[in-house]
Each structure stands twice: as C-alpha cells, then as structure tokens.
C-alpha cells in the first residue's frame, strides 16, 4: 500500500521554518491565516529581514562627524557642507539578472533609485559593479550584453548619469552573475526625509502613487532571493518584471515636487515585499498601526487576491504619508506628472495592521512583528582553508613584455569602454570625471565642490582570504577616491555571498564584514548602509565571496581633481608606497600561471591611511600632475595605464630585491604612481618624508614608448590597442 505523500505545510512551502511559525503564533497570539503567512514569509525572508547577517553587520562602525543618517533607513546620508547632503546606497539585483539580464538589471536600477528618492533626494549618479563568468561562454556574453543594456536602458531613460562601476570576470560567477547598483542623490540637508525629521501622527493617510499593481513579482522576494537557482528553476521565472523607466522618471519628478512643497510626512519606496513592507515599515517607524484597504489599490489585473496585492513587487510605485489636509495638493502634483493616487491606508494608534478587503479583515498583525521583531540568527560558521600554494615562489621564464600585453588584454584589466559607452554619463551636466577615472567626480550644482565616488571589490582576494577581501575592498575604493584628490567620507556596501545556511559561507561572510569594519575604522570612513545578497549559488557551488564597497568622498574644489593618466612629457614619475614580494591572488598568477592561490597582499591599514592623507594634502597643495593606484597587474599595469590614459610614454627603472616578474606584477597594497613637475619634486619629497610615506623616483614621462629599464619596452600605441580592444575582441566585435 503506498501512502499518498504528506503535503508540506504551507509555512514551509513559503520558506518559513517551524520555529518561525511558532514565533508568528506568539506575535499574533493565534495561528496565522494564509494571507498573514504570506506577509511574514516575505518580510522574514533573508532578503528583507537580514536575519542571518544582522548580528555581523551590527559590528560595523557607523558613526562619524559627517554622517547625517546611518544604516537602518532606505539610504545613508552624509553632510557635504553648505547645507547639502549626499544620500547613497548600493543594492544587488543578481538573481533576476541571471534569468533575464536586461529586465533584471533595469529593475535593479529602478529599485535603488527609488530608495534615494524616498529620502527626499534627487538621484544624481549611478555606479554599477558587475561580475560575470568568462566571456568564452556564450551564456556569459549574453548576460553581459543584457545586463549592460538593461542598466543603460533604464538609467539613460530616467536621466541619471552612470558615472562609474566595475566589471570583473571569474568562473564561479558563471551561473550567478553579480549585479550591484549604487545610486547617489543630493538634497538640501534640512529637507531630508528621515525617521526623526518626519513623524506622522494617527489619522495621516498612506497614499500609493505611480504604477498599478499587478501579479508580477509575487513572491519574488522569497522565491528569488531565498532559494538557489536550480531549486527555483522554472517556478521562479515569472517573478522577473518589466521595468518602465518612463514611469520612474515621472515618479522621481512628482516625488521631488511633493517633497519640495513640504507636502509629505513620510515617503517610502515599494521594493522587496511590496506593499506589506512599505506599509509595515511606515507604520512601525511612526510607532503606529494602520488600517489598510486593499480595495483601494489600483490593480492592473482583475480579481487579485489579498496576498497577491500585499506581496506584489510591481515596479515604479511609491507610498507617501500625507496629512488629510494636504491630500488634494498631493493629488494635483501627481496629476501634473500623469500619475494617479490612491489612499490605501490610514495610520491608527495601537500598532496593529488591520488589512481589509471587501469590507472584511483579511489579516491582522502587529506592524513591528513584521519588521523589527523578525528573527535573527547566529548561524554556524566553519573556516575554509584556501589553497596556500603561494605563486610568489613559482619561477617564470616567459617574456615580460608579452606578460604585460597578456595582462592588459585580460578582461579584468582591459578597458571597459565597451560597457560605459552604453551609459549616458553627462546628463544633468555635473560630471567632472566619468567612467574610466579612478574615481568619478560629480559637481555639487552651483558650487565648486565635487563628490568623488568609487566602487571596488575583489572576489579573488575574497575567495583566498575573506577578511582581506573585505579590508582591501574598502582600502582600494578609498584609495581610488584619494588619488583623485578627494577626502573619503563614508562607505556603502553590497555583500555578495553563497548560501548562509552553509557554515563555510557564513564564516566567509563574517570574516569579510570584520575586514571591512577594521578598514573603515582605520580609514575614518563609517558605513552608512548597504545590502546583503545571499544564495548566489547553483549546484552546490557559490560565487566567490565578494564584498563590494562604494566610497564617497569630497573635493573642496573640483578643479583640483587629479587625472589618472600622465598629462604631459617631462614630468618626474614617483612611486609612493613600498613593494613586497607578493604575487598571491594576483591577476598575473591567474592569467599567466593559471592559478588563484596563495595569500592576497598584506594590508597595513595605518600605512594606507598615511598614504591617503598624503595624497589629499599633495592634491590640495597642487603638487601633483597625476595619480593612479596600483591594483590588478601591479606597478607595470599601473604605469602602462598612466601612459595609455594620458597619451604620453615613460622611461623608468624599477629596483627591488625580488624576481623581475614579481616586482612588475606583484599587487602589494597601498601604492600609487604619481607624476610631478620637476619644480614640485622637492615639495613632494619633503611632504612624503614628513608624513612617513616611502617614495622612490622611478624616472620621467615622455616619448611614444613605455620603457621599464631592462624589463619592458613597448610602443604606447600598441599597448593602447590591446587594452582598448580586448573586450570587443572577446565579444567578436573587433
């Protein structure tokens, strides 16, 4: 006799654990109905609740003089002075992008932009750190092309310039590309919408405006974000949505007009977990409850069920908290921008969400139980041993010039022009430095001030030593900001990892957070927010642990920005910082030795701090003509890029007690190549000596060739061609 299989209980089908069901019972003092279960399922998903990561994120430093809003809100905010605040945050949209790269990436842009708008800020810049599998696979090319077109398609259409980003390639990202998007906005500091500045009272209305609500993205949060791809399979597919950037543009303008007119008591975007999240967070933040009328929600499709309306992740919607006296003015502003509004809820004392449909209550739960009272886990961790075989000690007898060419053609190193030419980098008219610079610089409208931005992550380092991966990501992004002459102020981050239920992944995560935290403390750049993307794995293999960090800095006068390339001939070339025999985890080891092994370069955070302080001081004193940091491919690639970007060659001598290939291509941290005019050399040397930063005069700029004495001698034009054309060639277009 064969027993019929026992159906899985509903809560488990929705991704809730048995002990989580017990918690729900405790909160509402009875058993939940299906609608309530769906609400808890989306709100307590990893994606919305951060239940596995919270205990670790809490250890990050979050305080600093410039911080106006730290983690815990839609986005962090820093003070730029003169009454202007910069709001910024990064988010991932990797899972949808893996199955529909264009729309997945496009809706990722839409989501993070709404986060910035919901703080009352005008979005002024986007940056997009991306990771894909190698381009020799057709699927990876399809993903790259689709993701880039999607980011451009959306960002270009809403008029927010994409000013920077990152693209890296590694086999572990084949099944799961990593798609992160950072958005920055500016707002008058006294108009930011924060939990403390805006406190609605009972009787205020929740007004939904923007697009209608459809069945798309139902369960997107729990299915897409909490289950790995192969489990989700076909079932997760319809969860991808179609982005409507035109609707988003209208939403941005209408929202900013509402904020500017002082008509709002609160503003919330609808993202993960849709209306449930927006309503419960708004109510919980106000310390109130709400009566929610689902019949008032404008629907795109007839006969949607309560749980569908509550969890739909239809794009391009916002929720405003409005006092009844302002409702008609809100309606008029929205109408001007062609947007309909609907009063979907009223704030009530008591803390309960009373969700009604067709006159009856369909769900009744405490708002706080969905948000702050979500479970938190201290998950098991187990250290992962990485391949310790250090490539630093492998002999290399290849040609050094050929090795440089191979590195310049390596997709991690090669020019990303193919990508960033698909992005409007100049709309809004404030882009002082766009993609292709170490850090992007965006002018604060009407001032001389510049905001410098860089995003960095190095999965190779993360896979070999997640602590160093986290620390290097902060140091490198901050260094990129510093070489442009700016002062790093604060960071945001996106932590891309595998399945947190696996102790190895959880350990990698904790280590990366620890490394990030240490670096942030040492460099004086607190964390203002971020995002965690778990479950980036398929068939049991995860992506490389990839903490991606975005650093925001300021430049008092954007005209003092330093370029990366050598701006002319006859300049002295200096190396600031010290080189060690460190080839572990390097691009050279991966590209030429075929190995990702050893230990990533050491990072002395005090040394890094001194270097960055020196750079800011030297830039402010106008001592430098250019500055470019050494990263992938070491000093040889750094010098070559200086020549390619500036259009001027160089002749230098490198000295060091190590094999030539280690000297040329080792990736020791905290190093920067600068060009200095001869009459400023003395001042630079003096300043570096006082600040305790080691320096060496390598040679001069000039001529059509890149010459490293006794090691490399190549025409800059040839190196330029290799570097510029590598990605088009891999895509079969050049």
């Amino acid at each position, binding site marked *: 006799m064969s027993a019929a299989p026992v159906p899985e209980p509903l809560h488990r089908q929705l991704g809730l654990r048995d002990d989580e069901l017990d918690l729900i019972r405790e909160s509402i003092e009875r058993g939940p109905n299906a609608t309530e279960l769906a609400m808890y399922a989306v709100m307590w998903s990893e994606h919305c609740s951060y239940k596995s990561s919270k205990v670790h994120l809490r250890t990050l430093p979050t305080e600093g003089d410039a911080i106006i809003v730290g983690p815990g809100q839609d986005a962090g905010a820093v003070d730029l002075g003169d009454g202007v605040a910069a709001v910024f945050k990064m988010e991932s949209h990797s899972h949808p992008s893996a199955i529909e790269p264009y729309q997945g990436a496009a809706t990722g842009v839409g989501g993070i932009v709404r986060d910035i708008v919901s703080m009352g800020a005008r979005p002024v810049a986007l940056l997009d750190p991306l990771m894909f599998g190698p381009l020799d696979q057709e699927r990876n090319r399809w993903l790259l092309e689709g993701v880039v077109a999607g980011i451009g398609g959306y960002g*270009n259409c809403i*008029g927010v310039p994409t000013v920077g980003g990152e693209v890296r390639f590694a086999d572990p990202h084949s099944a799961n590309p990593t798609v992160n998007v950072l958005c920055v906005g500016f707002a008058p500091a006294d108009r930011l919408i924060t939990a403390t500045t805006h406190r609605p009272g009972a009787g205020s209305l929740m007004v939904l405006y923007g697009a209608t609500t459809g069945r798309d993205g139902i369960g997107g949060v729990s299915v897409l974000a909490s289950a790995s791809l192969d489990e989700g399979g076909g079932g997760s597919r319809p969860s991808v949505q179609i982005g409507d950037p*035109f609707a988003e*543009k209208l939403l941005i303008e209408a929202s900013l007009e509402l904020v500017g007119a002082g008509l709002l008591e609160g503003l919330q975007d609808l993202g993960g977990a849709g209306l449930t999240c927006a309503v419960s967070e708004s109510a919980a933040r106000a310390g109130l409850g709400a009566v929610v009328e689902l019949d008032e929600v404008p629907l795109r499709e007839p006969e949607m069920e309560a749980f569908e309306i509550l969890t739909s992740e239809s794009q391009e919607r916002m929720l405003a908290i409005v006092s009844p006296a302002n409702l008609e003015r809100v309606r008029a502003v929205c109408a001007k921008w*062609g947007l309909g509004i609907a009063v979907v809820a009223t704030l009530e004392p008591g803390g309960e969400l009373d969700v009604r449909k067709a006159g009856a209550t369909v769900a009744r739960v405490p708002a706080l139980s969905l948000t702050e009272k979500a479970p938190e886990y201290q998950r098991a961790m187990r250290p992962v041993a990485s391949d310790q075989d250090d490539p630093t000690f492998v002999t290399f007898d290849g040609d050094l010039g050929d090795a440089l060419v191979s590195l310049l053609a390596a997709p991690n190193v090669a020019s990303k022009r193919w990508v960033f030419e*698909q992005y*409007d980098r*100049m709309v809004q*008219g404030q882009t002082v430095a766009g993609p292709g610079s170490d850090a992007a610089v965006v002018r604060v409208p009407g001032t001389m001030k510049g905001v410098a931005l860089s995003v960095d992550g190095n999965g190779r380092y993360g896979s070999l030593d997640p602590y160093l991966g986290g620390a290097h990501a902060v140091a490198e992004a901050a260094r990129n900001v510093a070489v442009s002459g700016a002062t790093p102020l604060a960071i945001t981050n996106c932590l891309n990892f595998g399945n947190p239920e696996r102790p190895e992944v959880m350990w990698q995560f904790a280590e990366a957070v620890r490394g990030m935290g240490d670096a942030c403390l040492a460099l004086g750049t607190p964390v203002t927010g971020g995002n965690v993307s778990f479950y980036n794995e398929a068939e049991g293999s995860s992506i490389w642990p990839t903490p991606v960090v975005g650093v925001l800095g300021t430049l008092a006068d954007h005209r003092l920005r330093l370029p990366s390339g050598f701006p002319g001939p006859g300049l002295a070339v200096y190396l600031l910082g010290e080189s060690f025999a460190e080839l572990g985890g390097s691009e050279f080891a991966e590209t030429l030795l075929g190995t990702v092994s050893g230990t990533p370069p050491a990072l002395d955070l005090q040394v890094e701090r001194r270097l960055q302080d020196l750079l800011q001081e030297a830039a402010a004193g106008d001592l430098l003509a250019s500055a470019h940091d050494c990263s992938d491919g070491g000093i040889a690639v750094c010098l070559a890029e200086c020549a390619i970007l500036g259009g001027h060659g160089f002749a230098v001598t490198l000295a060091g007690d190590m094999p030539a290939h280690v000297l040329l291509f080792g990736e020791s941290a905290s190093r920067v190549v600068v060009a200095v005019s001869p009459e400023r050399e003395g001042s630079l040397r003096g300043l570096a000596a006082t600040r305790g930063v080691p320096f060496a005069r390598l040679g001069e700029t000039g001529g059509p060739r890149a010459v490293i004495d006794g090691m490399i001698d190549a025409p800059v034009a040839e190196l330029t061609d290799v570097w510029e054309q590598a990605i088009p060639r891999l895509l079969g277009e050049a």
Partner: protein
Amino acid sequence: MSARIGVVTFPGSLDDRDAVRAVELMGGEGVPLWHGEADLRGVDGVILPGGFSYGDYLRCGAIARFAPLMEEVVGFARRGGPVLGICNGFQILCESGLLPGALIRNRSLRFVCRVVHVRVETTQSPITADVVPGEVLEVPIKHGEGQFVAAEDELDRLETEGRVVFRYCGPDGEIGDAYNPNGSQRGIAGIGNEGGNVVGLMPHPEHAVDPDVGPTGGQALFASLLSQVLAGVP
C-alpha cells in the same frame, strides 16, 4: 536685453535643465516651457531638448509631437521663428513633419555616449550663422536611435539645398564611415528645414559649453543662436 530662449519640458525630457543652463551660461535667458500649456511666453527661440519623451516608447518623439504646446511650436516655426531640436528634440521635429527623414536605431543597436567631431556644413541656420563653414566642433552624442535615414531623393534635395547642417567627421574634418557613430546616411548629424530657421541635430551642444564638464564645441552654436535672435534674424 538678452535673448529669451524657451526650453520645452515633455514628460520624459532629460536635458531640459541642461539646455536652460547652457543658454544662461552663454548670456541668454532660459525660459522653461511646459508641454501641456499652449503658451510660448513670448520667447524669441525654442529648444526641444534631449531625453526620452514618453519613454521613447513606440517610436522616439511619436507621442510628444501631439503635446498641446507643439501646435504653438509648429506655428512659431512656420512664421520663421528659430527652433532647435536636440537629440530627442530632433526626433520630435521629424515626427511632426517640420524636418524630413527619420531617426532609427543605431547601426550597432546600442546606445552610444561619446564625444565626437562634427563639421559645420552651412551657415544657413540660426545656430551656425556665425560659424565658419568647414569648422570642426567637439560635441558629445548620447543616443540609441540616432541613425538618420531618408529617401535618396530627399537626401539629394537636402544636399543641393544646403540643408545638411552638420556631418560626423574626424578631428581634422575628414568624412568617413569610421567617424559615423550610428550609421546615419551620408554621415548626417543635423539638418535644417527649407526656411533655414528649424534645425535638428543628434549631438548635444548644451553639454559642450561648460569646460569643467565637457568639450566646448557647443559655445559657438549657442553664441550664434543668441546673436541671431537678438538681431531679429529668424
């Protein structure tokens, strides 16, 4: 007295504020105009700015051309008033029949944002009247649908009537496929109407006036527009 140049904002316009800023940087007065109000506010010239009006859904410019203000713009143009369409504005002018031809997807099928060179082909336009023909200007482009197409006889007519205003070129003014960023027929980057008072171009001169954030090839074009308007020349 400074020239008053109206800049129309359609839903989805993006470079409208940039065009106003460029006008003002060059000494004119930028007057924001709203698509839904059939009122030109007595401006001396009109700019239809870049962007994605109505998302560029269906076809670029297809929906914007029905805006209430567009009737006024068409009348203004017919009376000889200077009208400049930049990028999406160019597309709107073609859709509304003020300029011939159409702009279809770039040959590469991809959006392209880069600084290009264009050669000034005629002084018979309000934005090139004060520029030397043959002059090469550095201006950015940023569009996905900028491939100019028209019937052969239409193209011939544009050429013989001297209505090709700009052509994509190399740094020294040389014309060739290598310098054509989108596959436009005959390398055409901008054209004028029969009266010479309506011009459309894909490049963005408004992003080429402030040396802190880009090239400066647009300065001469805005200077020309403003002086023409002040001189009362259509």
